[in-house]
């Protein structure tokens, strides 16, 4: 009886599609190439309206390990001092005048426009997604990714990965029913030093926001070890001290 069960278990493991394993490996390599596991980063977020009007935000971000990320708005003046914190699925926003940090959700947007909180406080793709299919397109892989839990902002991702650089070139964010929510385009590869070579600009558009475009421009990324206490509600008003 034991032998039969063992045989069946081996058979089940062997039946897992090879492309899923390969897809997860590609995804892990993409994560590794995009950012170190723990880092500090400066970004500019730009929302562009159909008539050309722009609104810009500058954000300082620190991340540690797989599940901790915090952000500080440096500009514009109306948003200066706002901080965000993400611990796994928990997200908070602190607005200096308003008071204590309030819980927010991944689908909301602290900046308006096409980027939502999940985009701004993104953890590693491998933390939230698993590959269910890989297509070989020659110069690129196309990964079909599925969210590991229902708390993730987008149920499905389609990620085009540059085969040589192992960096994403385009990501489509979709619902469980495969409805397109937004598309991210990765552009302008830059050497940030410390072995980090990655796209410096992410452009996004969305069929839900026709004519609007948003940009995320990476101005500086470097590996940095940060104490766990920096990723707490009490520290949110003092995040500026890490700069």
């Amino acid at each position, binding site marked *: 009886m034991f032998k039969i069960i063992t045989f069946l278990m081996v058979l089940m493991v062997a039946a897992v599609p090879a492309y899923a394993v390969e897809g997860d490996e590609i995804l892990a390599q993409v994560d590794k190439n995009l950012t170190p596991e723990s880092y500090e980063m*400066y970004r*500019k977020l*730009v*929302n*562009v*309206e*159909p*008539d*050309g*009007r*722009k*609104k*810009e935000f*500058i954000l300082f971000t620190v991340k540690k390990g797989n599940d901790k990320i915090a952000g500080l708005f*440096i*500009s*514009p*003046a*109306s948003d*200066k001092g706002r901080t965000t914190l993400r*611990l796994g*699925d*928990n997200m908070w926003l602190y*607005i200096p*005048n*308003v008071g*204590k940090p*309030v*819980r927010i*959700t991944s*689908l*909301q*947007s602290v900046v*308006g*426009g096409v980027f939502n909180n999940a985009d701004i406080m993104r953890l590693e793709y491998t933390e939230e997604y698993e590959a269910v299919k890989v297509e070989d397109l020659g110069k690129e892989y196309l990964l079909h990714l599925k969210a590991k839990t229902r*708390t993730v*902002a987008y149920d499905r991702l389609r990620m085009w990965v540059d085969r040589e650089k192992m960096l994403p070139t385009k990501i489509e964010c979709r619902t469980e029913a495969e409805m397109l929510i937004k598309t991210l385009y990765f552009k*302008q590869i*830059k050497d940030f030093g410390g072995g980090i070579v990655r796209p*410096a*600009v992410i452009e996004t558009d969305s069929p839900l*926001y026709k004519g*609007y475009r948003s*940009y995320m*421009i990476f*101005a*500086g990324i470097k590996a940095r070890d*940060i*104490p766990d*206490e*920096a*990723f*707490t*509600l*009490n*520290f949110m008003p*003092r995040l500026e*001290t*890490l*700069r």
Partner: protein
Amino acid sequence: MRMGLALLCAMGLLVLFWKASAAEGTPTFDLSEIEKEVEKKPYAFGGFLQAQPTLSGLDRDSPLYRLRFYQDEPGAASEESDVGVRLEGALEYGDLSAFARLDSFLSHDPDGWDGKMTLMEGYLSYKPGPHMALDAGKRVTKWGKGYAWNPVSFVDRPKNPEDPEEALEGYYLLGGDFIRSFDGPLQTLAFTPVILPVYEDINDEFGRTGHVNVAAKLYALLYDTDLDLLFFTGESRTTRWGLDFSRNLLTNLEIHGELAWIQNFQEITFLENGQALFNESDVWSYLLGVRYLTETDLTAIFEYYHNGEGVDPGDLKNLYAYIDQAYDTYQQTGNRSLFGPINSLTKEGFSWRNPLRDYLYLRLSQKEPFDILYFTPAFTTIVSMNDWSFNLIPELNYSPITNLDLRLKGVVPVGGKQTEYGEKQSDWRVEFRLRYFF
């Protein structure tokens, strides 16, 4: 003045629906320019300019109108305007830093012009690392999880539930913050002690003077739930204990609550002759709320608040009757001495803002409807459950260009005679607020 108000409103509406006509091409980004923008300086300076005209339709039969305007009645409508600036400055030197927030406003109301400068916060900090901070000076502690009310906010001034996101003025205190992080179900533990002196010329609005008070908060992030245990003791106010929590049940559904036990509270009862009687007893205040975000970006905040420090509707009726009596006496004899005891009630713990015991709060805000970026209409209602009177507050928020915030807001109290909202001094109020941040 009326012309000025109309002009300001017209300007506001013009900007509200202004659209830039010149479309720009695809933006280009110079990374070296951004690197210059993020360079940190040891000092920071900012704030906003504000203009806020308000037009109110006054209820001349209301006791609160009579209490405020018995000497010089403005008539059926009142215009008020605030013009001013909020300045914020910060300075950093190693582990030491200083911060100040100063409000300087000129106000015009039926009594004329008045200028006021208020240090909202101003403190020195010592921050040797993320695990510890020490503060000394005037600051707001921001305790509690409720949106409209915070019964456990033992060392802050009460929020205005009609405008709960407005900055509060702090108290002078010594405070600490000690944080530890862990792996496992308990992710964070933080201890926040506060020492609050109350003397004739420092924090005298807080309570009885001549005493040093102590408060503390213990915070834990446990099983993805925010938990706080809070405590206050001292001679300036009676001892009180508190508990609050906040947790996301779903990614788009958050629940929160607060519970405060106030020992030896001086409960107020008003007799028909206006006399206030005080009875010492332990009271409970509590709040339970939810915040829900729909797929269409509609945020709903709903809270129930039991105010253990409030009075019965019958006592409020007696108070209204006494104000009417004091008003009639003043009209007939010119004697205003009967108003004296009413004006001193707030020092004895009575709040005109939430005088009764049970309230409901509902706020619905729709982010960027009809694809209008940075535009958020909202609707709020506050219901006094003890007499079922209520407030209706529609508002439009728009930020058409960077650093410019516009808000058009109405307030309509609804209720019968001798109810809380039925007897507010205004039948309606419309205010327009313009803020330019720098």
